[in-house]
């Protein structure tokens, strides 16, 4: 199993952000993480990536516990944080080389590795411009390239297409479909259309708990109004203004 999440729980002050989330992902799967804002998607992904420590439960990547063997587990994950925060004063090429070298890629190979990842996400001429001058779409691509650099077998992507225009979104979806053949991918998204287009499985999370975990088609068939109907029915009660 590439990723096994078992009973993850995380509390911020009095709020229980993630309340006993368990699931597993195998190679070849693209799992869409769905849920309203604040449902616990980002917190769960942060715990899998080793940015936050779980209060309870474990996440194992190829059997390596993220809390106990953090660095070894992190070597096997490519993670795109929400909003793709980066170092603004660096250029994509210097940033990606920094990530590659921190990940232990020898300097002689880092140039090749960086160029390949930059090509995968179609960075083009943006590669030499300061990151702070790039558009949101390009920044997201730089973040995505950083996640792909070391050719990880597990990708955890927090809203990889958020803020992209339709052409960029299509390009990222094609990239995900291509990468998925030999990897396990977990993506969070607000776009139900995206789940239908690229995901083999959809996990709906609501108030920190898993409300549904099945194929997008099976989920859509259970509720009137397809996937959108399912999403609304499963996450009701959140948006009373």
């Amino acid at each position, binding site marked *: 199993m590439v990723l096994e999440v078992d009973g993850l729980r995380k509390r911020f002050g009095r709020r229980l952000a993630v309340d006993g989330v368990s699931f597993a992902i195998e190679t070849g799967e693209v799992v869409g993480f769905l849920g309203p804002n604040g449902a616990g998607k980002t917190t769960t992904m942060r715990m899998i990536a080793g940015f936050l420590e779980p209060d309870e439960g474990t996440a194992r990547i190829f059997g390596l516990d993220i809390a106990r063997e953090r660095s070894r587990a992190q070597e096997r*994950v490519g993670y795109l944080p929400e909003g793709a925060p980066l*170092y603004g004063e660096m250029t994509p090429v210097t940033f990606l080389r920094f990530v590659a070298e921190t990940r232990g890629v020898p300097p002689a190979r880092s140039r090749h590795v960086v160029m390949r990842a930059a090509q995968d996400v179609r960075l083009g001429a943006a590669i030499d411009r300061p990151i702070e001058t790039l558009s949101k779409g390009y920044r997201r691509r730089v973040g995505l390239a950083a996640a792909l650099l070391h050719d990880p077998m597990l990708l955890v992507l927090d809203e990889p297409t958020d803020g992209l225009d339709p052409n960029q979104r299509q390009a990222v979806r094609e990239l995900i479909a291509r990468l998925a053949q030999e990897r396990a991918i977990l993506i969070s998204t607000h776009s139900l259309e995206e789940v239908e287009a690229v995901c083999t499985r959809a996990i709906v999370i609501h108030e920190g708990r898993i409300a549904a975990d099945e194929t997008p088609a099976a989920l859509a068939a259970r509720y009137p109004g397809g996937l959108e109907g399912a999403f609304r029915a499963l996450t009701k009660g959140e948006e009373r203004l």
Partner: protein
Amino acid sequence: MKSLLAIYRRELVSYLTTPTAYVFVAVFLLAIGMFTFQAGRFFDLGRADLSSFFVFHPWLFLVFLPAIAMRLWAEELRSGAIEVLLTLPAPTWALVAGKFLAAWTLAGGALVLTMPLWATVNALGRPDNAAIAVGYLASLLMAGAYIAIGSAMSALTGAQVVAFVLAVLIAFLLTAAGLPLVLGFFEGVLGAGGAEALSRLSILHHFDAAQRGVIEFRSLFYFLTLIGLFLTYTALAVDARRGG
């Protein structure tokens, strides 16, 4: 180790590609020059040594070095890039040490730029060059301690200005504990023995000792312990962020 080097390089380049570091180094050099020649009366003393130069180092460092160190962690937290850093497979101590060493290198660079003064005293007379070399070594070690304090405050508060103010305060207390004025006060409270013990814990006590031309093992140990303590504290503060 590879990750430490990568962090070190990134941090150093980041210092050298932004104007802030240059401004700080330039102002430091200007200030140390002014203090040495005006307040320290370098020429009037008629002595071929650098005592009127080194005597101002603690007081200038305790303001300038927290200013250099304040961004080390606070900037990561502000921009959110901390999430990139902490999800790389690097142990926290390597991140802490890499950043610290980059700032320390910058301080070392500023010290190197004061070396024309060393050349000047050699042109004017025959100074004890070994004593001056020890003075520089002690100054570098002391700079490391101030940067470690700045780094810890930066990781703890996550806000540059607050980190700066707290670091200056801690650095000042640690330094001034060796001043006769402060000692006199504590002699009244703690007795002569207590005040003496307190002064041994001060940066000034160990820095002054080194200015006599010999760096004692306990002073070396003192500065390295301060650096180690505050870097450990930095690592704990960074790891505490993982707890949410």
